[in-house]
């Protein structure tokens, strides 16, 4: 938990487009970092690179001295367990119950047979229930995940991330599909984990006020590059206008993009 994440000149090319362009970053343990930027700025790609769901074209990512980009096989799966990921669309298995969905977070520890038979130990079930309890979802534990509301599903995803016993938590637009009340619950959950467990949290956001309210540090991306890196106070209106670009947006109105109004930034 006391290791920092380092990205050194990381680039990712998709055919001709450069989604992430020569990004270098250093994220200290225990930070709550928000990444903002327009759609297509490379925020998602950057998180996927860290979790190794995709491989970088160039550059290296390391965590506490371990070269992440070189990992293969079991070591790679263990890294994915250590660096839990939360998705915009929750990515739960709708037809499985909530408890099993949370236990998926334990799969990296399982052998082939126990995993195929969906056999989990009592200790693991206890762990899953504790995680669900923290997020107030014990009553739903035996319900099928698909029957839950979006906010509940996202909290199940957080519980699943917790039982991975991660060292760092990534969240890719975790509240983009949620209403304001649920968005607050999910963000509060992430903050609680950050403060109580001392977990590093790296979260992509599309709403500025959320980033301002929750993040110790805000990183802004534009066209694959880091455009701004600082505290919420340093994020002035001029900087914001540069990040999102005024073209097409008559005047940047923070209130419109806020989750409180539940309207997303117009897609460019």
């Amino acid at each position, binding site marked *: 938990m006391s290791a920092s994440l380092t990205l050194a000149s990381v680039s990712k090319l998709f055919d001709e487009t450069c989604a992430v362009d020569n990004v270098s970053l250093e994220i200290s343990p225990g930070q709550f970092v928000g990444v903002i930027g327009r759609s297509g700025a490379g925020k998602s790609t950057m998180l996927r690179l860290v979790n190794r769901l995709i491989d970088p074209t160039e550059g290296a990512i390391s965590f506490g001295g371990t070269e992440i980009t070189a990992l293969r096989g079991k070591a790679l799966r263990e890294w994915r367990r250590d660096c839990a990921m939360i998705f915009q669309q929750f990515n739960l*298995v709708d037809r*499985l119950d909530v408890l099993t969905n949370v236990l998926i977070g334990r799969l990296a520890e399982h052998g082939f047979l126990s995993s195929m038979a969906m056999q989990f130990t009592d200790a693991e079930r206890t762990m899953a229930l504790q995680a669900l309890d923290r997020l107030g979802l014990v009553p739903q534990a035996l319900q099928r995940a698909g029957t839950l509301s979006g906010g509940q599903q996202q909290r199940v995803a957080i519980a699943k991330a917790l039982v991975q016993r991660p060292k760092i938590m990534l969240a890719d637009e975790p509240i983009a599909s949620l209403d304001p009340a649920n968005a607050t619950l999910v963000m509060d959950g992430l903050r609680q984990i950050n403060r109580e467990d001392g977990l590093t949290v790296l979260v992509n956001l599309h709403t500025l006020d959320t980033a301002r309210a929750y993040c110790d540090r805000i990183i802004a991306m534009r066209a694959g590059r880091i455009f701004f890196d600082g505290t919420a106070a340093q994020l002035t209106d001029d900087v914001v206008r540069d990040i999102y670009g005024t073209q097409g947006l008559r005047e940047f109105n923070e209130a419109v993009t806020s989750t409180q109004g539940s309207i997303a930034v117009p897609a460019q």
Partner: protein
Amino acid sequence: MTAIGEPTVTPLRPLDQFELDYAGLRRRTKTMWLVASLIFLAAFTFSAWLGDFFKVTQFTLQDGSREWRWILPAGLPRLGEFIEKTFPVLRWESLGADLAEWFWRWRVWANLLIETILIAFMATALGVFGGFMLSFPAARNLAPNKWVLWISRRYLEIARTVPELVWALIFVFCFSVGPMAGVLAIGLHATGALGKLYSEVNENIDMRPLEGVKAAGGTWFDQIRYGAVPQVMPNIISYTLLRFEINVRASTIIGYVGAGGLGQEFREALSLQEYTDLSALFIIIFVTVMVIDYGSEKLRHRVIGMEKGPAA
């Protein structure tokens, strides 16, 4: 907003432009239909000619003289003749005895019927196992690499393009006459057919749950087991029941080449010209297939409606 490209002539009013485009579209559609119809007609006529549908044959009249006739009206009455031969003699006053004579081999047939259904059952079980296992590497979105995809797809193709009857001939040669050859033949063909159907189901799943499992450190097998299998289960059960129906029909005929089941009785009845046996066998198979189709359809609808029930 500026128009794309610099207009050199005054553009038409939108409505006029629409009229023009619409007329053009209709013209093209009409021509396409005409061409397609002509191609279809030509292909159909050629096939009919190849298939001897225009053949003229000699036909014996009532008075013994012979005359040239078109084959269809000449041959059709023989169908009635054949069906008439399979009718048993049933008299009201001795109905029981007549029925007993019609189904005179009922003990043998009952045993063979059970054998037929068991062949279908075991073949379906084998086919489900093989098809299910191969449907994941044979799905474009799930295959771990293109070699595995290529090999599993080719295997499934070979298994299903060779008809059951041909597999049965081969297996009878290998394992001698009996139900075992039938089970293997139908099982192999079912593997190919089910594997194809299952893999198409797999190709239509939502990939996000699999990504969720992968991001938590799951292996390829974990992604399949937790992300894919729960999604495809209702469809798999439904296709399996459908295949069981098909396999029951297949196992009734497979005995024709000595691979067990009722089929061998068909062959015997035909070669010994016991035409009433044919109708008796037909009735037995018809009723069996109907009962199994009905039962499995009921079951399938329950499975499809099972959306709220516990997941697999």
